[in-house]
Structure formats: C-alpha cells, structure tokens
C-alpha cells in the first residue's frame, strides 16, 4: 500500500500547504501593500496548483506515463485508440477551470495595483499603519 510515489505525492501536497500558510501569513501580517499584493499572487497560484493535483492521474505502470488530455492522432482514429486515450489521460476539468482563473486573477491584480497607486497619490505612503485617515 505504502509506496515511493505516495510519499513523493505527499511531499508535493505538504509543500503546497506550507506555501499556502506562508502566503496567508504575508497577507495578514506584512504592513506594506505591495508585499500584500505579492503574497496574494502566490496564494492564487498555490490554490490553482491544488486543483491541478486533484486532477492528476498516477502512472498505470512504471513506464506508461499518464498523458495530457489532448488526442494526438485525431485523423482516422480507431475505437481502441480512443478507449486507450480515455484510460491514460489526466482529468481535463480542473485544467479548464484553472485556465480562466489565472487570467481573471491577473485582471484583478491589475485593479489592485491601480488602487494602490491611487492610494499613494492621495496619502503619500503605502504602509497600512501610516494610512491613519482610512480608519473609521
């Protein structure tokens, strides 16, 4: 039951949880707004990575790799090849969801950057502790 690949996959997931915790720490406790934006991008990327890992398929045998969800020889494909493709490809649904999430994350980050720039033009600082006028 316990195999080397299980251990390695656990290492990957544990590292991603660690990244998530570090990014959350950065968002909560770092006072500078630019650092908060950087931590936010890292958080989004890590969340996307979790979705990809959920859709991954382990190698069936040690030398038969799982394939990307793209049918290569689509002209005159036979039924057997199609069944083999279905039995070796990874899950395409998380990839499709993450694909749009990345582009929209970039658009939202651009919006946040404009917001930070406007704050700097108005208050002359980006440190949260110094922006007293935003309180109340």
């Amino acid at each position, binding site marked *: 039951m316990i195999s080397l690949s299980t251990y390695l996959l656990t290492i990957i997931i544990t590292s991603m949880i660690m990244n998530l915790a570090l990014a959350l720490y950065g968002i909560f406790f770092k006072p500078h707004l630019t650092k908060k934006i950087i931590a936010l991008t890292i958080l989004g990327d890590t969340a996307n990575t979790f979705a990809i890992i959920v859709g991954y398929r382990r190698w069936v045998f040690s030398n038969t790799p799982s*394939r*990307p969800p793209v049918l290569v020889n689509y002209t005159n494909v036979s039924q057997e090849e199609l069944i083999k493709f279905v039995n070796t490809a990874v899950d395409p649904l998380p990839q499709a969801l993450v694909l749009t999430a990345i582009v929209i994350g970039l658009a939202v980050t651009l919006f946040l950057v404009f917001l930070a720039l406007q704050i700097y033009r108005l208050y002359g600082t980006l440190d949260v502790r110094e922006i007293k006028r935003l309180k109340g």
Partner: protein
Amino acid sequence: MDFSIIQSFIIYVLPIYMVAFVLYTIRALKGPTISDQVLAIDAMSYDLAAFLVVLSIFFKEPILIGTAIVLALWIYALDIYIAKYLEKKEVGE
C-alpha cells in the same frame, strides 16, 4: 532505432540536469545582488527550456513542445524589466 534505447539514455542524463538545476537555484536564492539572482534565473530557465524538449521526447508527447517556445520567449522579459528598473528612469520613457 528502438525507442527504449533513447528513453534509457535520457534517464541516465537526467541526474546531471537535476544537479545543475539545484546549483542554479542555490545561486538564484543566495546571490548577493539582484543582478546575480536575475542572471541565475535567466540561465536556469533557458536550460529548463531545453530540458522540457528532452522530456517531451521522453514522454513521447510531441504536443508538450509549445511550452518550451513560450518559456524561452518570456525569460527575456524579466531581464528587461530588471534592467529598466536599474537604469533609474521612469518606466514609460
């Protein structure tokens, strides 16, 4: 030629690439100045592009090759941004 020969050759070459990437990453994390870090990322990513092509032959998946083209294009952009920042001019000019 038989495909298994190519595959086993790539398996023997793989550890050399991995040691090189680990050393590059150490320099990229450690580098005393920003320029050292960016230079290490630069060299690492071009080698990574070559490595991705080799791996796509290993996996027998020709469609994975598009990723290497995009990676080779974009690392150049990171160099340019840091250089522009170091020149101490405003970004649009």
